[in-house]
C-alpha cells in the first residue's frame, strides 16, 4: 500500500478535510482540553465501577421489558443472536453500523445459519457489496472513489446513473427501503448505554439506525460492556464530543435513545427489544491496571485520522477489526499478544494519537508497554543479543571510541554496495543515505580541547 501513491493521496486528502472540520468544531468548545479531561474522568468512573453501572443498566432495561443477554465470547454472542432470529422464525435481517458486530464476525455467523443480512449504513452497504471489511471504524468506505462506487453499483445493483453522490445515495436508498420493510429483525450497535435510565444511545448520520430499530418487529442491540456511562446528563458532553472528534460535526445527524420495547399505549417501536452485552476479553483489559483506560474508547476514530502510519498504510493493512492506534493497542489483548505484537512495533511512537484522543487514552505509551510485554514473554535471541552487545560497547569509553574509529575507517567499503542485498544496513539504505561517521567525534574534540 505504501507504494500506491494515488491511494495514499486519496486518504490524505480525505483526512485533510476532516481535520479542517474538526478544528472548527473543536474551537466551538469553550475549552476542548477541559472537555477531554471531563470526558476522561467520566469514563474513568464508568469503567472503574463497571460492576455497579452494569447492574443498574440491566435492572433498568429489564424493568421495561427488555431482554438482556450476557455473552462472554464473540461466538456466544453470535449464538445468542442467531437463536433469537431463529426463534422468531425470521429470514431477513437489517443491520445498522456496529463495529462490535465486525469484531465477532456476526454477519458471517448469521449468513452461515441461513439468514439474509443487509447493512444499512451507506458505507457499510458499499463494503458489504464488495465483500470486504470496513476500511475505517467510522468511514467504512473512505478508500473508494465515487467512480469505483458507481462501477460497484452498476455491477451489483444494475443501477448507477452517474458519479454524483446524491444520485448514488438514491440508488442505495431505493434498495435499502425495500429491505427495511421486508426485515423481520433489526440489529444495531450502540454508542453509549446509560446506567441511570437504562437506555441505549445510538448516534448516526443517515437515519438508517432509526429505521433499523423502528420497522422490524424485533430489535437487537449488540454492545461491549464498556459502553456504559453513569448518567443521562453525561451525553451532553459525549454526544458533541463524539461528533467533533469522529467526523468534525457539531452533533451527528440523529441521536436516539432506546429505552425498551413498545410500551402499552405507545404507537411505535419494536415489539421485542434485546440487548446483548459482550465481554470478549474486555474484562482482561479491565484487569490490566496499566491499560484499563483503553476501555474509555468511544470508537470515534480520531486516533486513526491523525495517525501517520494509518495514513500511509491504510485501514485494510492492519488485518484487524479495529485499525489505527487503538487497534494496535487492543488487538494483542483481544486476539493474542504474540500474533498481533507487530502492530505495536509498527509505530514511530509519535504520540499524535494520544494528543487527539478525546477521552485521553495513553495510546502511544500503551504501544511501548505491549512491546515490553511481548519481548519479556518471548524475546528474540538476536535482538536481545544485539541490545546486550550495544550496552557493553556504550558503557565502555574504550569500546565506544574504538567503535566510532572502526566505523569511520570501514564506511567507505559500504559505499559501493549501498542499498543492495550485500549491504548490512540495507533496511535503511535501500531508500535513505546513511549519515557519515565523523572523523573527529564530539568526544574526541572535547578531550583535545581540554
Amino acid at each position, binding site marked *: 500500500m*505504501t*507504494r500506491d501513491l494515488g491511494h*495514499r493521496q486519496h486518504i*490524505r486528502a480525505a483526512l485533510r478535510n476532516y481535520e479542517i472540520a474538526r478544528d472548527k468544531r473543536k474551537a466551538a468548545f469553550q475549552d476542548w482540553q477541559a472537555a477531554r479531561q471531563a470526558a476522561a474522568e467520566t469514563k474513568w468512573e464508568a469503567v472503574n465501577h463497571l460492576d455497579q453501572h452494569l447492574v443498574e443498566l440491566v435492572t433498568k432495561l429489564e424493568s421495561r421489558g427488555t431482554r438482556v443477554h450476557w455473552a462472554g465470547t464473540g461466538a456466544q454472542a453470535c449464538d445468542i443472536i442467531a437463536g433469537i432470529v431463529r426463534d422468531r422464525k425470521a429470514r431477513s435481517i437489517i443491520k445498522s453500523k456496529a463495529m462490535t458486530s465486525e469484531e465477532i464476525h456476526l454477519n458471517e455467523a448469521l449468513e452461515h445459519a441461513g439468514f439474509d443480512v443487509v447493512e444499512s449504513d451507506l458505507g457499510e452497504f458499499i463494503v458489504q457489496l464488495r465483500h470486504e471489511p470496513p476500511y475505517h471504524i467510522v468511514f467504512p468506505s473512505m478508500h473508494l472513489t465515487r467512480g469505483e462506487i458507481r462501477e460497484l453499483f452498476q455491477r451489483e445493483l444494475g443501477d448507477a446513473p452517474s458519479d454524483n453522490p446524491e444520485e448514488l445515495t438514491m440508488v442505495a436508498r431505493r434498495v435499502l427501503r425495500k429491505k427495511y420493510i421486508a426485515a423481520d429483525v433489526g440489529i444495531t450497535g450502540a454508542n453509549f448505554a446509560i446506567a441511570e435510565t437504562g437506555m441505549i444511545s445510538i448516534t448516526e448520520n443517515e437515519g438508517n439506525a432509526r429505521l433499523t430499530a423502528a420497522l422490524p418487529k424485533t430489535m437487537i442491540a449488540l454492545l461491549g460492556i464498556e459502553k456504559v456511562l453513569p448518567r443521562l446528563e453525561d451525553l451532553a458532553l459525549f454526544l458533541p464530543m463524539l461528533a467533533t472528534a469522529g467526523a468534525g460535526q457539531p452533533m451527528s445527524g440523529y441521536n436516539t435513545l432506546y429505552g425498551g420495547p413498545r410500551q402499552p399505549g405507545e404507537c411505535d417501536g419494536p415489539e421485542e427489544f434485546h440487548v446483548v452485552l459482550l465481554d470478549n476479553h474486555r474484562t482482561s483489559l479491565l484487569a490490566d491496571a496499566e491499560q484499563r483506560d483503553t476501555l474509555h474508547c468511544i470508537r470515534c476514530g480520531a486516533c486513526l485520522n491523525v495517525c*501517520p*502510519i494509518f*495514513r*500511509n*498504510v491504510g485501514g485494510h493493512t492492519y488485518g484487524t477489526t479495529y485499525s489505527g492506534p487503538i487497534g494496535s493497542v487492543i488487538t494483542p489483548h483481544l486476539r493474542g499478544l504474540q500474533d498481533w505484537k507487530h502492530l505495536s*512495533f*509498527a*509505530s*514511530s*511512537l*509519535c*504520540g*499524535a494519537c*494520544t*494528543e487527539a484522543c478525546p477521552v485521553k487514552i495513553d495510546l502511544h505509551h500503551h504501544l*511501548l508497554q505491549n*512491546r*515490553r*510485554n*511481548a*519481548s*519479556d514473554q518471548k*524475546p528474540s535471541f538476536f*535482538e*536481545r543479543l544485539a*541490545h*546486550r552487545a*550495544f*550496552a557493553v*560497547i*556504550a*558503557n565502555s*569509553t574504550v569500546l*565506544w571510541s574504538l567503535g*566510532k574509529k572502526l*566505523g569511520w575507517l570501514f564506511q567507505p567499503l559500504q559505499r559501493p554496495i549501498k542499498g543492495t542485498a550485500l549491504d548490512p544496513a540495507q*533496511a*535503511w539504505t*535501500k*531508500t*535513505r*543515505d*546513511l*549519515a*557519515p*561517521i*565523523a572523523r*573527529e*567525534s*564530539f*568526544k*574526541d*574534540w*572535547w*578531550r583535545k580541547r581540554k
Partner: protein
Amino acid sequence: MRIQRMTITLFIPCFVDALYPRAGMSVVQILERLGHKVVCPKEIACCGQPAFNSGYWAEARAVAVKVLEHLKDAETVVIVSGSCGAMVKNFYPQLFASTPQAELARQVATRVWEFSDFLVTKLGVTDLGARFPARVTFHDGCHGLRELGIKKQPRALLAKVRDLQLIEMTEAETCCGFGGTFSAKFPAISTAMGEVKCASAIETGADYIVSNDLSCLMHQQGLLSRQGSKLKTIHLAEVLTGK
C-alpha cells in the same frame, strides 16, 4: 541583567557524538558564551532508548543506569535532542520504577533540559546575536513536541536570528517516520512517512529544515540526499552560532 554562572552538564547522545559533532560544538559555544561552565562526562554514550523502544527494558536499564550514575550530582543537565531528553525526563522514572534507582531516576529527570527549552525557559535568552541568511522551515520532533511540550521555544530563538526567514510547512507537526528501530524494522512505512514530510518541507521553498532533534534530521537528510534534493537539514544550535 547579571548572569548567574551555572555548571551545565552536557549530555551528547550517541549518534550526535559520532555523526553530528558540530551540533554539540555549537551548543558548547553558545552555553559558554552565555557565561556558563560546561562539563561533559566522557562515560555517558547513550540514553538506552533503542532497547527501551524495542521492549528490552532490562537491556535499556543496563545502559541507562550508567547515565544515572554520572548525572547523579549534576545540578543542570542539557541534552542535545528532544527524543533523548524525553527518554531521560519522562521515561526513566517508568523504566526504573520499583528498582533501587527509582528515586534517583525521578530526581535526575527533574534536572534535565532539552537544549532550546533550556535557553528560552530556564535562561530566558532568545537573542544570541546570530546571523543566518537563509529561508528555513522547522521540523517539530515528536518527542520534543508531545512528550516535552516544546513548540514555541525554538521558534522564539529563530525569530531573533538576523536575515533568517522562517516558513512553516503544513506538516510541521507530522512525524517524519524515523522512530528509532522502527525505521529499520518497517522501512517501507518509515520511508512513506518521510516522503510526506520532505515533500511538505520542499513545498515551502526553504533552503534548510531546522530542528532541535538530529535523529529526525538524520532520517530526512537520508531521504533528501537519496532523492538528490538541494534542501539541507541543520540543527538549531548550528543556526544559532551562524555569523
